[in-house]
């Protein structure tokens, strides 16, 4: 698609992308939000959503105990019902990667990857040396997925080459040891045109996933933003035959929101993206609501929130 990745060439390429009409994109997202997902399709969607959750804790107050607790939840989200699938990954800061990896391995969660946020998450305001070290620490501690942030300052001032080069270098560090998710922080990019440009920039630079947000900035994973990113991976596939994943994160707190995301995936990118290899949802509170709704479908009534575990 593009062989010359110099600043000028990237700029020229991004200019060839069609613009996004914000009114139209919002209308399309709103229309898809009216889809009514019931009974068997709801049951399927809930289990699919659970398997797509990147169960996340990204707080200054994180402790080894807290991380071990979410690892237990990740492997067996509902200890009373073993038909509930495990989640997609556990997502932590890089100093907790080792704790998470060990905890998961101990309790039968060897297949669940640990994702680490990196490159001076969430702001990305640090020297490249710090970002590289951040990334290497996570990989060395056993992270199989790196969630890096782009330099939004560079992007907004038009230094696309800088953004691109940084992603390329982090991708090299990841090598075949870790998948790279690139966080665009769409709440700071603001326009859907920027979301489209940043999506392409990340995909061209080697992202395995493009991710909406850090969860530290609002708005985060709004439906129109996810729509535009899904269009980007769909069109990138038709150009390159490579499927890039999408990860909305931030603000998806209940089952209804999660199912709306799956409808977007189904009708925009296509059913090929409806699996945890190509779609993840970054969330923490969401998982318990999915479990409550799953119980409701099974039992016919809503259980008390006391029946799901708080970890």
């Amino acid at each position, binding site marked *: 698609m593009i062989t010359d990745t110099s600043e000028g060439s990237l700029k020229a390429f991004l200019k060839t992308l069609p613009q996004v*009409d914000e009114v139209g994109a919002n209308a399309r997202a709103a229309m898809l939000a009216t889809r*009514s997902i019931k009974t068997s399709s709801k049951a399927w*969607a809930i289990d699919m959503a659970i398997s797509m959750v990147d169960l996340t804790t990204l707080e200054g107050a994180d402790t080894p105990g807290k991380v071990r607790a979410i690892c237990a939840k990740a492997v067996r989200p509902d200890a009373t019902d073993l038909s509930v699938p495990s989640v997609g990954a556990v997502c932590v800061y890089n100093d907790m990667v080792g704790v998470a990896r060990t905890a998961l391995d101990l309790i039968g969660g060897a297949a669940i990857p640990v994702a680490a946020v990196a490159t001076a998450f969430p702001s990305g305001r640090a020297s490249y040396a710090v970002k590289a070290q951040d990334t290497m620490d996570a990989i060395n501690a056993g992270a199989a997925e790196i969630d890096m942030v782009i330099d939004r300052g560079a992007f907004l001032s038009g230094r696309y080459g800088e953004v691109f080069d940084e992603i390329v270098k982090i991708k090299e560090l990841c090598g075949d040891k870790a998948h790279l998710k690139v966080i665009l922080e769409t709440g700071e990019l603001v326009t859907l045109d920027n979301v489209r440009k940043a999506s392409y920039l990340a995909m061209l630079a080697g992202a395995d996933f493009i991710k909406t947000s850090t969860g530290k900035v609002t708005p985060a994973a709004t439906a129109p933003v996810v729509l535009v990113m899904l269009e980007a991976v769909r069109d990138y596939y038709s150009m390159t035959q490579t499927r890039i994943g999408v990860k909305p994160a931030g603000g998806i707190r209940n089952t209804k929101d999660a199912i709306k995301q799956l409808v977007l995936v189904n009708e925009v990118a296509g059913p090929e993206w409806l699996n945890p290899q190509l779609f993840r949802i970054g969330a923490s509170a969401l998982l318990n609501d999915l479990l409550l709704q799953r119980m409701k479908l099974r039992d016919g009534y809503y259980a008390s929130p006391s029946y799901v575990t708080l970890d």
Partner: protein
Amino acid sequence: MSQFEYAPALESTAIVNIAERYNLFINGKFVTPKSGKYFPTINPANEKVLAKVAEANSTDVDLAVQAARNAYSKVWSKLPAAERGKYLFRIARILQERAREFAVLETLDNGKPIRESRDTDIPLAAAHFFYHAGWADKLQYAGVGDQPKPYGVVGQIIPWNFPMLMLAWKVAPALATGNTVVLKPAETTSLTALLFAEVCQQAELPAGVVNIVTGAGATGADIVNHPGIDKIAFTGSTEVGKLIATSIAGTKKGATLELGGKAANIIFDDAAIDEAVEGIVNGIFFNQGHVCCAGSRLLVQENIHDEVLEKLKVRMAHIRLGNPLDKNTDIGAINSAAQLAKIKELVTAGGSEGAEQWSAPCNLPEEGFWFAPTIFTGVSQTHRIAREEIFGPVLSVLTFRTPQEAIEKANNTPYGLSAGVWSEKGSKVLWTASRLRAGVIWANTFNKFDPASPFGGYKESGWGREGGRHGLAAYLKASN
């Protein structure tokens, strides 16, 4: 289940009580027709009879016109304008309260998806009453002089594609301007008009201000030819519009005619392509393409033709055709066997004239009237499918090379109802819009309706405007 297949999500029909038979609504009461005749109305999604509806003959129409005349001279014209406005507000609020009931009934009788009747038809119908309620006591600002006067008794004949919405487009401005009404809904979609008659009773609208007579073309002709009618407002085919114009020639009757269209939807190469594709889909597949202003001719700039078509086909594969009561249905049933036959005839002509047909892959239900969303590529201006109104989910794709050529092709039609322009370049949008000979031009959107916006056609698409300030003028005469 290995794929995300949406389970049926059916809207309940429990909210609607459909009677076995419906009478005429004349002078505030439901009365048996003098004709003694009733005809069946069916659900086009399963061909089952929903109810029997009275067939008004000329005696029935005469009674309705007398009732309207009586109500006009004795009650409605004597009422202070603000009081008229109150009735309209009351009707608007009742429509909102009973919106779900209207939406379900509309979907049953018409075949359109519940998503559209629920989210578009009925909310817009209520909006028209709200909008015109506000006008009732401000008519001196309608642009028809200081003391505009109503016509008197207005005969209104509406089509089957948006039964309740077209009723609102007709009745709301007529009442706001002080006219009384004899309205005939289309024979395949009478039920929401008859439910509206109930709303008139509920709102305690004075008897005879709104009269609803049901029937087919002959009943319509009786209204048009009745000497007691002061003005005709008609929405329907250009063919019938011409007949009406001929019938009323030489009489004092006024007329507004909202007729057919063959709208050009112009996509320039600097358009927001993904949203333009949505606009194409919305332009032609909204309401199964039973839309007079549908974007039925896609004019796409030749250098992006392949890209747009590829994306359009991917998008069309996601269109969900099926039970109109399913909340996830995008495209419902064709309204009647006759309309389906007309669509099929033109589609066959398209193929035999050399255009290439592509239909979205979808299973058509066995009962009822259905047509898969279809596009024709390689269409030229001389093809019938580029000239005649198909009034179905069928899109003709043509190309152009320069903006000038787009304008030439867009205007090269006897119609002139609507058009769409897609470009992210503002100056180009304005340049194009000012050269298109059409009554409504949408920029970077399509099929957007608002009661404040006048709607109507150039050339054989009609006379006069409906909606907005311009629409009021169609129901008012300047006083001497």
